[in-house]
């Protein structure tokens, strides 16, 4: 592409500095980013200082930090955060654990019978819309004609349980669905992470007689950690804002057993139409999510530095 340099020179000859030329290239992206990200964010920030119910037909009323103060003093909000964390940590933990095991099996047993078919089937849940998967599992858990309650009844001799209608089991049932849906993702990330380990080093490890855990610690982890942790970050962020799956299965119920932040957020904003409080909660959620990813990024960066020095 010899032309590029020529084009750039022509711009400059017409009185445009290189800097101005760079700006011309960047402006469309900046404009897009501003319209879709910055403006809504500022709008949200502004709204969070007002009392505003669009359905009441009254002008917004400035509250200052009122919405935040009432959020902080609301014990329900803290409970929702707790629920969200329980959901997030358990889901990501179980999915990572299972994903590691499955990924390792698929990676190390190239000649495994039916490997390809199994991989294809395994990855199919991931492509479903969460609402569809949620609806699907609500039927599976249905106390009257669902498959799971039927077998619980058949094996344990207890009456068919209403898993989603019981505040003790609803979270477990939702978690199981999330695990079913997202373990394949962690399996895929594990396979990718192991694929990043140079074959020569693995072979050297076998000639050097490294034990399994030594290979994991000194060969697989140093090369695979970036991809694996990237998977964990993506999964954590996604689990933190899970909405569709829970909305379709329990809508936060029964009571508030599965009421995670995103469900609360939706209810505040689009059921109660309390835009101010909803915005404040949204910002708060965003803050938590950013804090999370920062921890991971810090960890990754630190590791990187450790490997170099």
């Amino acid at each position: 592409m010899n032309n590029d340099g020529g084009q750039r020179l022509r711009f400059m000859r017409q009185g445009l500095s290189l800097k101005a030329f760079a700006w011309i290239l960047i402006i469309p992206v900046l404009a897009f980013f501003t319209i879709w990200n910055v403006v809504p964010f500022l709008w949200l920030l502004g709204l969070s200082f007002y009392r505003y119910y669009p359905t009441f037909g009254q002008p917004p009323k400035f509250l200052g930090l009122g919405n935040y103060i009432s959020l902080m003093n609301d014990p329900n909000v803290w409970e929702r955060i707790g629920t969200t964390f329980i959901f997030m940590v358990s889901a990501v933990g179980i999915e990572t654990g299972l994903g590691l095991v499955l990924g390792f099996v698929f990676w190390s047993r190239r000649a495994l019978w039916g490997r390809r078919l199994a991989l294809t089937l395994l990855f199919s849940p991931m492509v479903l819309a969460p609402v569809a998967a949620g609806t699907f599992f609500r039927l599976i858990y249905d106390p009257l004609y669902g498959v799971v309650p039927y077998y619980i009844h058949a094996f344990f001799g207890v009456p068919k349980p209403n898993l989603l209608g019981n505040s003790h089991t609803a979270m477990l049932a939702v978690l199981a669905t999330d695990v079913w849906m997202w373990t394949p993702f962690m399996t895929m990330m594990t396979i990718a992470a192991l694929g990043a380990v140079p074959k020569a080093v693995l072979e050297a490890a076998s000639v050097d007689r490294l034990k399994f855990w030594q290979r994991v610690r000194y060969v697989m982890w140093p090369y695979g950690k970036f991809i694996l942790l990237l998977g964990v970050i993506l999964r954590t962020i996604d689990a933190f804002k899970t909405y569709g799956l829970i909305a379709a299965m329990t809508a936060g119920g029964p009571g508030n057993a599965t009421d995670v932040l995103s469900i609360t957020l939706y209810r505040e904003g689009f059921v109660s139409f309390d835009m101010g409080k909803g915005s404040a909660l949204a910002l708060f959620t965003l803050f938590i999510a950013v804090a999370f990813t920062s921890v991971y990024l810090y960890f990754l960066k630190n590791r990187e530095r450790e490997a170099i020095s």
Partner: protein
Amino acid sequence: MEGISLQSVSKRWRHTFGLRDMTIDLYPSQFVVLYGPRGSGKSVFCRLVVGVDQPTEGTIMMNGVDVTHMSPIQRGIAYVPQTFALYPQFSVYDNIAYPLAIQGEKKSEIRGRVEQIAATLGITNILNKQPDQLSGGQKQRVAIAKGLVLNRRVYVLDDPLVGLDYKIRERLVEELRNLQESLDALFVYATSDPLEPLLLADHVVVLDQGRLVEQGSPGSLYYTPNHVGTTTLGYPAANIIPGRVNRDGDRWHVRTAICDIPIGVTAEVAPDQEVVVAIRAEHFLLGDDQSAAASLFEATVELEEDIGSERIVHLRAKGQALQAGFADHKTSLPLGQTLAVAIKTSAMRIFDQHNGRCVATGAAGIEG
């Protein structure tokens, strides 16, 4: 049998062969060099012996035990792979020491051995660095150290010196030879360098396209190669000139573009057979040298290379480029000069153009 023995070993991936029907015995305490061009199966050979790969067919025996399906751990062979593999989180010292530590050696013993091998390879000053701070050549030497530090009966080195700087190479060749002698172990050393087999080997195994084409002592392979692939040994490589067998009564010749070369008759040559003639640089003589009047031709001097101990003259005769070394001629030859050149025909080898086998040798010619 002591040592390693491959019996009809093949390695195949779908339609490509890595190794074809390899049968060979490697004896203990020998320095065996596998020689061949890229893709000739040297690495595959090494990997199968070490056990990081399994053959498709055949059996591998070690000291009389069938090890074909044994893991590298069970075989216990020291290995320097072609792509050097270091543990990224370990310092250079730990990289070399770790395999020893796994064997359960004492700390003081480990330190001594690591320092000794580091000194041999000239990497003492980088022992505290991390692998990603090293240059390619340093990494390579660390990988060699890591393989050689182990006390084993068999060492497999897959082209360990490739790309290293000439001086280090020269020193390491010597060190490897000494090390092999002091360890009294079997060394299997793969290389595509034409000089290393001559410098290192007790026994050279020549591979080509996954096949064993020839084996023997470096001297016998250099002077009496039985396969055209072997003539690349040494520097400069033998000149390969295509020709055709011609019969004139009971006199047999190979007719080439530059001259006719008399050959001894064997059962393997027939008139009109397409052959190649291998002429080593030292088999050319200046025409005024009275000892050989046979196969005279004229050639033009194109370039002269002075490599200290000897002089290599690049000639062109009827379009054919030749590399000659006129051992007795000490003064330099003017470029562009046309010379009368003779060939010491009795030392030449004739190979079939299609299967590369030696079919005849040059005859003494008219001078006899």
